[in-house]
C-alpha cells in the first residue's frame, strides 16, 4: 500500500500529461518539502520508464517473429514508437562507430561515437543481438553473390566491373565476360576483336581494343600483356598503374593510351596530366629508371634495352577507344554542370540486349562529370526494359517492380547532394497486395553496410534514399519521399532530412528534386517545382559507393515505374540552379511545372 495514495493519483496524471495547474502545484510542494515523497516520485518515474523498456523488448521479439514469417523487410519505423533504452550493456566488446554529426577529425573515433554505440547497444540489447544474428543469416544475398562483402578493399576479391562491350569477340581460350559482370582479381580479358570498357573499383576506366590480352590484377593495377588501351583516371584513383612486359606506367591524374605490340615494343601517349614510366633494367644491379611523360607527349620503349625515345603524339590510333568512352558525352545543355557527379539519360545512351533489356546505362560525361560511373545489370532476369516512347515521346528505362534494378560502379558522392530525376509510376504500383514501398534510388550499393551496422548503430555516413515510404505503416503507393537514413538511436530510426511529397499517381511523369544541404542543415523535396517542405539535415552522407537504381539496398522492395533521367550533383544546388535544371527537364519532357510553389 502506498504511503501517498492521493498523490499517486496526481503522479499518474503528471506522467500522462493531464495534470492541471492546481494539481501540479500540489505535487511540487510535496516534492520540495518531503524527501521521502521525492524518492517516491522518482520511483514512479522509474516505473514509467521501465514499463516502456520491457514492452520494447517484447515488441522487438514479436518483430523477430514477423521476419521469420517472411515479411519483406525490417519494419524499422515500427520500432520508433517504442520506448527505448534498456540499461543492459552488451556482453561482447564493441567496436568504434560514428555519431551522426560531423567532427573536425572524422578519421578518428570520438568519445561520443563510442558512447553512442554503447547507448544504442544498450537499447533493447538482447533483442537487437538476436535480430542482428537473424539478419546476418537471412539477409537476401542472392543479388549480392558476386560483389564484395566488405568495403575494405584489401579484403575484396572484386577489382573492377566490365561496363561496356562493343562488338566484342572473345578469345576462345579465355573466359567470355558480359556487360555488368564483376571482375575478380586475376580475371583475364582476352579479346580477338571489338572493344570493352573496364571500370576499376578505384574509378579508373580502361577501354581495351582487340586483339588484346589484359589482366585485372587489383583495384589499382591492370596488366597489359599485349594490345591497345586507353585509361582515364580520376583524382581519387591517383597512382593507378598499368603494367606491361617492358614498362610500368603509374598515373598521376591523367588520360593516356598504351599500345603494347610485338617484340615488346611499347608506346605511351599522354593526353592529359602526367604519367610515370618505370622500365626495369636487364642487369639486376642497375636501378630502374623513372621518366615523366606529360600531356601531349609520347614515348616509345622496346625490348632491346635501348633508351626510351620521344615520338610524335598519335591520338588518332586511339580514336576508336576514346569514342567508346565518349559515346555518352553530351553537348552543352541548359543545365548546371558544376559538381555534376552522375547523369543518366535514356535518350542519350542506353545499351540493351536483343530483348530490349538494359545491360548498361552509361554515365554522360558533361561539365565536372569527368568519370563515367555507368549503371549496369549483368543478371538478365534483373534487367529493366528500354521503352522507346515511355514519357511524352521520350525513352525511359522501365522497372517492373518485381526484380529489375541497376547498380552503378563506385561513385564518390558528398555530404551535400542534389538529385533530380524524371520518372513515372506504373499502374502496377497500385497492386492491392503491395504493403511496402519501393525505392528508386539508394546510395548503399554493394558491398552494403553490414546488418549489424543497420541494427545496432547510427550509420555514418547515412544512406540517401528516394522512393515510396518503405514501411507498411507509412506506405502509400506512389507517394514520393526523400531522406538520408542514418541508422538507429535506441530503438528509433534516424531519418535525416526526410521530406514526404504526395502520391503522384500512375502514368503521370514528374520531375523529382531532392536537395540535401548538410552544410546548412536543411533538406527539401520538390515535385515539378512545387516544394513539399524542408527538414533538418543533420547526418553526413559523403561516401564512395555503388548507387542502386530501382530497389532497396538489401530488401526486395522495387520501383514500379519508368526512369527517363537521373542527375546527381555533389553539392546543394542554389535555388536558381535548381530552378534552371528543373526548367530544362520540364521543357525536354513537356512536363508542366507548378509555378504556385515558387
Amino acid at each position, binding site marked *: 500500500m502506498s504511503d501517498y495514495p492521493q498523490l499517486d493519483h496526481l503522479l499518474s496524471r503528471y506522467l500522462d500529461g493531464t495534470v492541471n495547474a492546481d494539481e501540479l502545484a500540489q505535487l511540487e510542494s510535496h516534492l520540495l518539502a518531503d524527501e521521502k515523497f521525492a524518492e517516491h516520485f522518482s520511483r514512479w518515474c522509474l*516505473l514509467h*520508464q521501465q514499463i516502456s523498456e520491457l514492452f520494447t523488448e517484447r515488441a522487438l521479439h514479436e518483430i523477430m517473429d514477423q521476419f521469420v514469417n517472411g515479411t519483406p523487410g525490417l519494419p524499422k519505423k515500427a520500432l520508433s514508437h517504442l520506448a527505448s533504452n534498456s*540499461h543492459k550493456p552488451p556482453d561482447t566488446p564493441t567496436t568504434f562507430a560514428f555519431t551522426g554529426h560531423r567532427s573536425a577529425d572524422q578519421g578518428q573515433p570520438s568519445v561520443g561515437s563510442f*558512447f553512442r554505440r554503447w547507448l544504442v547497444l544498450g537499447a533493447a540489447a538482447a533483442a537487437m543481438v538476436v535480430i542482428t544474428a537473424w539478419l546476418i543469416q537471412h539477409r537476401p544475398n542472392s543479388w549480392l553473390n558476386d560483389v564484395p562483402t566488405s568495403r575494405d578493399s584489401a579484403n575484396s576479391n572484386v577489382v573492377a566491373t566490365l561496363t561496356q562491350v562493343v562488338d566484342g569477340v572473345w578469345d576462345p581460350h579465355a573466359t567470355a565476360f558480359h556487360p555488368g559482370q564483376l571482375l575478380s582479381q586475376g580475371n583475364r580479358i582476352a579479346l580477338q576483336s571489338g572493344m570493352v570498357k573496364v571500370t576499376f573499383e578505384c574509378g579508373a576506366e580502361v577501354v581495351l581494343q582487340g586483339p588484346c590480352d589484359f589482366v585485372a590484377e587489383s583495384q589499382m593495377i591492370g596488366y597489359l600483356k599485349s594490345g591497345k588501351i586507353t585509361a582515364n583516371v580520376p583524382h581519387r584513383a591517383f597512382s593507378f598503374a598499368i603494367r606491361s612486359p617492358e614498362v610500368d606506367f603509374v598515373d598521376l591524374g591523367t588520360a593516356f593510351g598504351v599500345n603494347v605490340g610485338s617484340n615488346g615494343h611499347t608506346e605511351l601517349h599522354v593526353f592529359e596530366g602526367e604519367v610515370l614510366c618505370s622500365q626495369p633494367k636487364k642487369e639486376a644491379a642497375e636501378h630502374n629508371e623513372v621518366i615523366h611523360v606529360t600531356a601531349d607527349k609520347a614515348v616509345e620503349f622496346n625490348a632491346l634495352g635501348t633508351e626510351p625515345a620521344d615520338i610524335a603524339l598519335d591520338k588518332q590510333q586511339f580514336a576508336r577507344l576514346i569514342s567508346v568512352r565518349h559515346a555518352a558525352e553530351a553537348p552543352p545543355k541548359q543545365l548546371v554542370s558544376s559538381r555534376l557527379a552522375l547523369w543518366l539519360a535514356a535518350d542519350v545512351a542506353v545499351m540493351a540486349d536483343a530483348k530490349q533489356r538494359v545491360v548498361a546505362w552509361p554515365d554522360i560525361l558533361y561539365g565536372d562529370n569527368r568519370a563515367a560511373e555507368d549503371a549496369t545489370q549483368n543478371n538478365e532476369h534483373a534487367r529493366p526494359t528500354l521503352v522507346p516512347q515511355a514519357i511524352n515521346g521520350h525513352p525511359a528505362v522501365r522497372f517492373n517492380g518485381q526484380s529489375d534494378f541497376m547498380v552503378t560502379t563506385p561513385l564518390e558522392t558528398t555530404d551535400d547532394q542534389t538529385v533530380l530525376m524524371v520518372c513515372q509510376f506504373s499502374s502496377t504500383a497500385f497492386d492491392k497486395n503491395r504493403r511496402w514501398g519501393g525505392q528508386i534510388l539508394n546510395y548503399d550499393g554493394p558491398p552494403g553496410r553490414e546488418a549489424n551496422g543497420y541494427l545496432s548503430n547510427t550509420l555514418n555516413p547515412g544512406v540517401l534514399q528516394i522512393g515510396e515510404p518503405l514501411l507498411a505503416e507509412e506506405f502509400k503507393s506512389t507517394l514520393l519521399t526523400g531522406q538520408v537514413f542514418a541508422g538507429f538511436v535506441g530503438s528509433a530510426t534516424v531519418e535525416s532530412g526526410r521530406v514526404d511529397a504526395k502520391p503522384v499517381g500512375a502514368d503521370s511523369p514528374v520531375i523529382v528534386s531532392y536537395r540535401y544541404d548538410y552544410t546548412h542543415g536543411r533538406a527539401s523535396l520538390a515535385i515539378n517545382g512545387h516544394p513539399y517542405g524542408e527538414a533538418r539535415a543533420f547526418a553526413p552522407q559523403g561516401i564512395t559507393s555503388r548507387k542502386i537504381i530501382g530497389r532497396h539496398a538489401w530488401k526486395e522492395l522495387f520501383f514500379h515505374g519508368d526512369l527517363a533521367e537521373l542527375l546527381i550533383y555533389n553539392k546543394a544546388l542554389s535555388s536558381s540552379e535548381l530552378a534552371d535544371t528543373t526548367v530544362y527537364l520540364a521543357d525536354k519532357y513537356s512536363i508542366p511545372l507548378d509555378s504556385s510553389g515558387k
Partner: protein
Amino acid sequence: MVSDAPHEPDDSPQDSPVRELARLWVQSQSVISAYITANVLDVQHAEDLVQEVAQVVAEKFDTFDRNRSFVSWALGIARNRVLKYYRSRARDRLVLSETALTKLEQALENVEHEVEDRRAALKICLERIQGRRREVLEMRYTQNAKVADIAHRFGMSSDGVFVMLHRIRTVLYGCIHRQLAKEGAR
C-alpha cells in the same frame, strides 16, 4: 605495492576515458531516461533529448570532476536540456519548475541503486497484468498513445482510461514493493 592514490582514468585499454564513460553511462542511463521521459510526454522528443544529453556528456566528459557523482552531473545536463526543450517548443503539458526538477534529480540519484532490482521485479509483475488492462497498458506504452486515443480505441471514456492506467501503475508499484521485500527476506 598498492597505491592509495585517488582513482584516475589512465590510457590503458581497460580504463581509458572512453571505457570509463561507457561504464558510467550504462550504469546511469535508466535514471536519466526515467527523468526525461517522466518530464517530456512525447516519446520521440524524449528519445532525442536522451541522445542530446548523451552527446553533451560525451563531449564534456573531459571536464567531469571525478569527485562528483556522475549521475548527478549527467542529470544536471539533462535538466538543462529539458528546460531548453520547454523553452523552444510549445508545451504540450504543464511541467515542473526548475527547482522541482532539481529536487527530482536528487531523489533519483538516491534511488539509482534500486534500478536493477526494480526492473527485475517489474518484469514479473507485468506478467500478471492481463486482458483489457494489458491491452490498454500496451497501447499507452508501445504506441505512445494519448489517453483520449486509447479511450476511442476501446470505447471508454478518457476518465475511465486514466483510472485504469492509474490502477495498473498502482498495482505494479505495490507488486514491485512486495517482490523486493520477498527477495530481501530470502
